[in-house]
């Protein structure tokens, strides 16, 4: 792992120049693409009508993913910090959700989910800025030919993904980040890391226009059912880079920094789990057997990871802890995210068992060996779990292992499975996410640090961000 991090850091250095080009990408695409995306509503000729069951399921799924962030993730994170920083974490998650929600309808959805002309491999266009043309009469295709849901619904479902991804990152540098710097980072990172990756992984023409130019990683055949790459690797790497650039908390390794309220963390983890059914099963975009498969995998992989972490900790450290079982559950949820609709339930259990133990190593062995202060272990759980899940998806999709296989829209049948080819595709996804997010995050953190400073003063940090930054405290007992 040392080598991975070392090479990562090397890439950041090399990437600085390349990123300047990447940052210019979005504006360049604007005009070129406006016309193309207009034609992208692929099933206009068939004029299918959305099924009310599908529509309802997707509305519920969308709300479930909202629940993951507010209050799920906020409580999960909040309980893990010291009492003096509780409100700062809650405020950060709340504020990020709100900011990203607005940016998503302003330009995020368009850049992620429209065709992008010459740059279509990496980013979409601006034709649907401010939801231009996305009204109640417009539908988008799901993963089945001729099955549609309202585009506004798809747009909002995806909004919740963008919001939670950015919110996840705050765990990496919690208890010391300057609130204003965090907001600036969130806006820029959303624009330059989340949107391109979402486009690269998820953008395609749809079942009726599968041959249309798709995003870079979609075209590579990288499978990511519900966002292991886009959400978890992406956020995990950003958090790691953030923790490295910002530096350790004052007193790290010396002062007691025990979580202040594990009850809150347990509630948050449970809400994350419940919400994750919408995240994973909702990513199927329609209420059918595959959605149910994703739902089953979301329960069994998670349960397996939770007990795997618990028993591993019990064996190695002597006691089974609540934080352990809750962290294991989140690790399992992360790992099964890309595999949710591809793996069979037994494969998902194996994935869960492995991910629980591996992420325990991620937050203990790896973290201590590399000596970074990722406050809430975003990298150890979301980064490591996301990478593991993305690679495992390539193995578990194999029909011989109970997976669904990869559906080929050209032949209307499940394509023949090829382990090497699929793993190669998955590694493209993992590698691209690591490098892209790593480089973008590094440049953004460095730039923001230079312009406005990333960190609160040592005095404010010791006082706690609740009173120092927000002027209130969580508990007036």
């Amino acid at each position, binding site marked *: 792992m040392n080598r991975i991090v070392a090479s990562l850091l090397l890439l950041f250095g090399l990437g600085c120049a390349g990123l300047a080009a990447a940052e210019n990408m979005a504006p360049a695409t604007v005009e070129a693409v406006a016309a193309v995306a207009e034609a992208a509503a692929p099933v206009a000729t068939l004029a299918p009508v959305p099924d009310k069951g599908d529509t309802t399921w997707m509305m519920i799924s969308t709300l479930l993913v909202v629940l993951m962030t507010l209050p799920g993730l906020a409580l999960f994170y909040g309980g893990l910090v010291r009492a003096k920083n509780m409100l700062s974490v809650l405020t950060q998650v709340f504020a990020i959700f709100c900011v990203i929600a607005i940016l998503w309808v302003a330009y995020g959805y368009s850049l992620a989910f429209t065709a992008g002309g010459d740059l279509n491999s990496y980013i979409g266009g601006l034709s649907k800025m401010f939801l231009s043309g996305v009204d109640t009469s417009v539908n988008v295709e799901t993963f089945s030919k001729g099955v549609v849901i309202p585009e506004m619904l798809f747009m909002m479902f995806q909004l919740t993904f963008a919001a939670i991804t950015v919110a996840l990152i705050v765990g990496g540098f919690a208890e010391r980040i300057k609130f204003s710097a965090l907001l600036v980072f969130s806006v820029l990172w959303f624009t330059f890391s989340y949107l391109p990756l979402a486009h690269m992984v998820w953008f395609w023409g749809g079942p009726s226009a599968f041959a249309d130019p798709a995003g870079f990683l979609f075209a590579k055949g990288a499978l990511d059912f519900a966002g292991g790459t886009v959400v978890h690797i992406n956020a995990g790497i950003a958090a790691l880079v953030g923790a490295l650039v910002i530096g350790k908390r004052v007193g790290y390794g010396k002062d*007691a*920094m*025990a*979580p202040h309220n594990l009850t809150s963390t347990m509630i948050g983890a449970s809400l994350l789990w419940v919400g994750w059914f919408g995240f994973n099963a909702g990513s199927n975009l329609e209420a059918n057997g595959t959605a149910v498969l994703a739902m089953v995998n979301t329960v069994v992989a998670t349960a397996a990871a939770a007990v795997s972490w618990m028993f591993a900790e019990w064996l190695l*450290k*002597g*006691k089974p*802890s609540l*934080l*352990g079982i809750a*962290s294991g559950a989140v690790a399992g949820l992360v790992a099964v995210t890309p595999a949710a609709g591809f793996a069979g339930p037994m494969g998902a259990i194996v994935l869960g068992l492995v991910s629980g133990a591996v992420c*325990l190593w991620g*937050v*203990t*062995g790896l*973290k*201590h060996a590399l000596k970074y202060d990722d406050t809430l*272990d975003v990298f*150890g759980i979301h980064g490591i779990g996301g990478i593991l899940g993305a690679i495992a998806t390539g193995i578990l999709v194999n029909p011989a292992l109970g997976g669904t296989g990869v559906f080929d829209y050209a032949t209307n049948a499940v394509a023949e499975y090829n382990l090497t080819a699929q793993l190669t595709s998955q590694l493209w996804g993992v590698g691209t996410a690591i490098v892209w997010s790593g480089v973008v995050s590094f440049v953004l953190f460095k730039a923001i640090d230079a312009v406005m400073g990333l960190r609160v003063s040592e005095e404010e940090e010791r006082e706690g961000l609740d009173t120092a930054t927000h002027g209130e405290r969580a508990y007036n007992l």
Partner: protein
Amino acid sequence: MKFVTAIIKPFKLDEVREALSAIGVSGITVTEVKGFGRQKGHTELYRGAEYVVDFLPKVKLEVAVKADLVDQVIEAVSKAAQTGKIGDGKLFVWDLEQVVRIRTGETGAVAL
């Protein structure tokens, strides 16, 4: 007059209070405190981060009584707070110079 400070295990507080009431003690002051003695602390483990907790939670009782009652107080607290295991706590007995009841201005033993 004597002043007794007792450090006891928190869960023994009710028994100690009852024992003191039974011998005629009319008031006590209770504080939640932390400290260490011969009883070792314990370690807490959060995702592999180990914290050694040296200071264990105890309850501090303060009782002011007439000198002739002090032996009974010592006996009552010792008996009620005892589990026989390490960490049961300690008693400190002081001479008490003066007592004032703020409401009335009474002083000395009457104010107890």
